[in-house]
């Protein structure tokens, strides 16, 4: 349970980090380490070089405007969760973040790191997809904005190139007359969810986001079909058996949680219309 040897680099600027990544195809970016270090310890990952973003200034900022919330690469889950302006602009962020692992993990784990780690059982990738957010990716070749809908290639696999750093993620703000909801079932609060569901209700659209059901975060549009929303969603989902839950139980949880989060999101939308 010790990592295999690697070269450790702690660049003092983003430019230096990008140059290191461009020069070393076997390099991996280290942010909060709460997903990567367990993989290193179990030797499921053994990169030749780790490029630690901990010494890069300017990556730990949160900015909120009427358009949305921008979260820098080194912003810890705990700091995003504690930011009242973030919750006021987009209530789904704190609703979901309170389910991200245990508080001790949230103290170091970064939201952007979780998003690009691309675990289908993680909350924030599903939230970013549901809200139609994006990630800003930078390399020596330039900077591009990757919409959440194009960010996930498969389980634990994002579409970012090996030399790109996700410098920030952007979540759209919640508009007037819109509401959101979030619920998940885990055996213990803070453990990986067996199923999680997020809802976004707007005057002209109703969408649901699912985590821990399929290989990637899945967003389903149920506009006009809310009474049978769970069945519509299940037509897009392929729940699997694992040691935590059977496929049948996961489908059951999809049905139960879909109803709950839709009701909560509609209530919030009503409150925000009045």
């Amino acid at each position, binding site marked *: 349970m010790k990592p295999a040897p690697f*070269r450790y680099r702690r660049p003092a600027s983003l430019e230096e980090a990008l140059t290191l990544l461009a020069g070393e195809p076997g390099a991996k970016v280290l942010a909060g*380490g*709460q997903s990567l270090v367990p993989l290193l310890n179990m030797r499921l990952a053994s990169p030749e070089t780790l490029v630690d973003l901990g010494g890069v200034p300017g990556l730990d900022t949160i900015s909120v405007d009427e358009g949305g919330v921008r979260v820098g690469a080194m912003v810890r889950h705990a700091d995003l969760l504690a930011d009242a302006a973030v919750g006021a602009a987009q209530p789904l962020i704190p609703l979901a973040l309170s389910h991200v692992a245990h*508080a*001790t*993990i949230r103290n170091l784990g970064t939201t952007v790191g979780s998003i690009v780690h691309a675990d289908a059982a993680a909350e924030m990738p599903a939230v970013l997809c549901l809200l139609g957010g994006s990630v800003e990716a930078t390399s020596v070749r330039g900077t591009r904005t990757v919409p959440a809908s194009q960010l996930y290639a498969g389980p634990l696999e994002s579409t970012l190139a090996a030399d790109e750093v996700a410098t920030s993620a952007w979540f759209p703000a919640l508009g007037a007359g819109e509401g959101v909801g979030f619920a998940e079932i885990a055996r213990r609060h803070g453990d990986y969810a067996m199923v999680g569901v997020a809802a976004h209700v707007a005057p002209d659209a109703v969408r649901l986001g699912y985590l821990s059901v399929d290989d990637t975060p899945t967003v389903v549009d149920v506009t006009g079909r809310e009474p049978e929303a769970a069945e519509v969603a299940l037509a897009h989902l392929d729940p699997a058996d694992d040691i935590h839950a059977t496929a049948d139980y996961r489908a059951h949880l999809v049905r139960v949680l879909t109803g709950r989060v839709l009701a909560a999101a509609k209530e919030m939308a009503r409150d925000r219309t009045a």
Partner: protein
Amino acid sequence: MTGPPEETHDVVLHVNGAAHAVTVPGRRLLSDALRHDCGLTGTHVGCEHGVCGACTVLVDGRPVRSCLVLAVSAQDAEITTVEGLAASDGSLSPVQQAFSDCHGLQCGFCTPGFLTTITAGLRDNPDPTEDEAREMVAGNLCRCTGYQNIVKAVMEAARS
């Protein structure tokens, strides 16, 4: 094993108010650096992948899993281990005293992680409900006590 010697880094770790100059490879976990390089064996190593919470220490006042931190990346931080909780005359901290009074430990292996976690938890929430006390320790595993006396100790420490 052959091959070039592993690259090492000279790092100063600030632990319980003392500076420890150590030379470590990049892959040295903070938990191992505390135990092997600083000689502070109060921090216990359980699962080594962030599940059990036994190795929890405070980094800049916040509880973190020391098995999920590289020692080289902790060089700018103030670290508090279980050895740093008691007063300098050796008298127990309120959380330690409550664990003793409430029988919050049996074998004691998980206890350092609980003590550090609860010390920070009560600083942030000095008057928790029992549910909040339970959530405070939800990330730490104990295989002896069944948790009831640990939750009692949290409530007792909050009263004292």
